[in-house]
């Protein structure tokens, strides 16, 4: 039911808007960067629409329920990234004239191997970011409507690849801008409704957190993935026939796919390795990763990863290339900060209400669905169903908008950077990449979306962030230095993730630095790039290539009066345009 009412219109509108982009699609530039004709306001709405993924729409509120108020630092890092982008990257990046990040790398450093390496990094980030989007789409649909997991994955894969293959970036721009407005309304209105409808009792409980120790009504918990619970004395579950039975205290392995109904008043089992919502430390506005006891380090680590990662996310950078000039790209970044700031005022409301109304979701690891589960708890009539439908539609819009941008950069990396080809090949690459990601997402139901997305941010922060910052602001960067830095960043983050997943257990600050390697992997990548570059020699045109990025487009050219220039330099204008002349002039100006 809810699928038909909530998801079908979103998918249909996406496809219809996508069809608008089909007209006048002739070149790679049309496909990848919408012919660079997107105004700052439309572009910033599209950037925000693309950026507010499932992780923002559902994930932040879910993390607040699970880990506490400190999770509100994630959105701060997400937004701060755009200030860094505005100050360091947006305008010079657009002026490079590149279509993709690998394009930029090659334009600045003239190295085809760096281009290929950058394309591989784009694929890694794309996969880390896309798989959780599709996975969460499947999970949310199965939570609200009971469809099998693969249905949601397949629906989103089909809608996204059809829109993109037909309309490319132009379609993606309109769809993402529309979906930003859509998401904003569908997030704010239900939040206010929930606050009003919840009543003074719930509101008071929300701001006085207590640990979740006792069920206050018969609570159904659906375990989509298996869980290990520590059952306390006196826990009781309701049998399907209506009778109740006690659960033996101690460890309880709940198999995947089972549904357990806990009785009203029964004590709450403890999920192995997680603190219950509302437990000591929940109310502290700092992020204690893995409850290791270093809240400040954890908060800073997350802030570094999200802020610098945003600056290196290839699909976000690609959106800046659709601006007509560097100045428009900069305005886009500033407007994006404002649009995101409005949206991020609200996830906390869902989080603190979710702790009161749906804390049991933490038992099955499904706190991601707290946002869509809330309306039914407040109102079990038609209003509740309506708002569940609205929030599901918003969440689905979030998956679609983000996946559109990501799929486009993945297709661009394959078909523009790795195996250069034309428009037809780009369209095939889109469909091929979508099929691959759907196949990857099908067995990925048990992976935590937040973890994968944060890894994507960390990889971006340790590879593209140093490449872009040094490429734009440091003339001595060399291609070998850039390659070494990107490779070291990629290997360091991948190694840390492998150690977290399969390595020996670590504790204390070491565990935090393994779970969230950004605080050391980003400086390491920067240092490698700088040191290796200092051992080499930048090419003669390197200063000109860097300075060119900072020269704005609409200026009165000194070449308007050619004779004056020729006289000043004592040469003909063509000799004067040689890089040796630029070198001579800049030698005394730039060290």
């Amino acid at each position, binding site marked *: 039911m809810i699928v038909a009412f909530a998801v079908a219109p979103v998918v249909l509108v996406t496809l219809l808007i996508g069809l608008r982009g089909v007209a006048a699609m002739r070149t790679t530039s049309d496909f990848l960067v919408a012919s660079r004709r997107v105004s700052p306001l439309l572009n910033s709405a599209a950037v925000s629409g693309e950026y507010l993924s499932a992780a923002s729409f559902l994930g932040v509120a879910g993390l607040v329920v699970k880990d506490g108020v400190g999770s509100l630092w994630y959105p701060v890092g997400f937004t701060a990234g755009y200030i860094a982008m505005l100050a360091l990257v947006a305008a010079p990046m657009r002026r490079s004239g590149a279509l993709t990040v690998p394009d930029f790398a090659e334009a600045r450093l003239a190295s085809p191997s760096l281009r290929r390496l950058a394309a591989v990094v784009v694929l890694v980030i794309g996969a880390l970011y896309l798989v959780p989007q599709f996975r969460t789409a499947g999970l949310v649909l199965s939570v609200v409507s009971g469809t099998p997991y693969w249905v949601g994955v397949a629906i989103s894969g089909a809608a996204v690849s059809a829109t993109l293959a037909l309309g490319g970036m132009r379609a993606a721009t309109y769809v993402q801008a529309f979906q930003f407005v859509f998401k904003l309304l569908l997030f704010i209105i239900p939040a206010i409704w929930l606050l009003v409808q919840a009543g003074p009792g719930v509101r008071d409980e929300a701001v006085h957190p207590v640990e979740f120790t006792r069920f206050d009504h018969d609570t159904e918990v659906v375990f989509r993935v298996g869980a290990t619970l520590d059952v306390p004395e006196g826990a009781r579950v309701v049998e399907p026939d209506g009778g109740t039975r006690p659960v033996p205290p101690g460890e309880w392995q709940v198999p995947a796919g089972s549904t357990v109904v806990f009785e009203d008043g029964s004590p709450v089992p403890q999920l192995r390795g997680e603190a219950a919502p509302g437990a000591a430390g929940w109310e*502290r*506005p700092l992020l204690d990763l893995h409850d290791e006891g270093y809240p400040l380090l954890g908060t800073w680590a997350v802030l570094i990863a999200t802020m610098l990662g945003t600056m290196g996310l290839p699909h976000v950078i690609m959106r800046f290339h659709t601006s007509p000039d560097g*100045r428009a790209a900069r305005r886009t970044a500033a407007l994006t900060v404002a649009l995101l700031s409005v949206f991020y005022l609200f996830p906390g409301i869902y989080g603190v209400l979710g702790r009161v109304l749906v804390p049991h979701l933490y038992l099955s690891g499904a706190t991601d669905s707290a946002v869509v589960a809330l309306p039914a708890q407040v109102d079990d009539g038609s209003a509740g169903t309506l708002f569940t439908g609205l929030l599901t539609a918003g969440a689905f819009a979030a998956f679609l908008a983000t996946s559109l941008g990501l799929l486009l950069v993945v297709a661009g990396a394959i078909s523009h950077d790795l195996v250069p080809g034309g428009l037809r090949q780009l369209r095939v690459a889109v469909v091929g990449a979508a099929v691959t990601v759907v196949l990857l997402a099908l067995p990925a139901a048990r992976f935590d979306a937040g973890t994968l997305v944060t890894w994507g941010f960390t990889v971006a922060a340790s590879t593209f962030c140093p490449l872009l910052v040094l490429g734009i602001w440091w003339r001595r960067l060399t291609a070998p230095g850039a390659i070494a830095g990107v490779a070291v960043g990629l290997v360091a983050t991948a190694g840390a993730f492998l150690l977290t997943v399969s390595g020996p257990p670590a504790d204390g600050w070491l565990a935090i630095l393994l779970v969230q390697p950004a605080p050391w992997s980003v400086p390491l990548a920067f240092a490698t790039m700088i040191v290796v570059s200092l051992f080499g020699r930048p090419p003669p045109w390197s200063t000109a290539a860097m300075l060119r990025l900072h020269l704005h487009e609409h200026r009165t050219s*000194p*070449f308007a009066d050619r004779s004056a220039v020729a006289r000043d330099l004592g040469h003909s204008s063509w000799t004067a345009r040689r890089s040796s002349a630029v070198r001579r002039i800049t030698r005394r100006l730039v060290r």
Partner: protein
Amino acid sequence: MTGRRVTVTSPQTRLAHARRRYRGRWRPTTLDPAEAPRAVALYRVQLRGAALALGLLLTLIFGLPLLLAMWPQLVDVRVLGIPLAWLAPVLIPFPAMVALGFWHLRRAERAEDE
């Protein structure tokens, strides 16, 4: 009189052809030397501006958690019933970042307009 045909080129052309040329898609970036001083000036102004904006941003988003860690009792201070420490990560950084963004944007554009 033989039928042999020889290429006749100016020494300048021969020199130009002998010089290494960049093949493939990539061409070195050109910068008009007459514009170089302007580019250098812009680069310096924007670098200083970006460093200042980033410095303020880092002070804000790394300093606020530090303050909250130093005064954990802020959780007990309530504004309209809501703990002050819960409002801090939402109501302080976002308006501040919007203001910082537009402030930096104006300065960066003004530098280019001069």
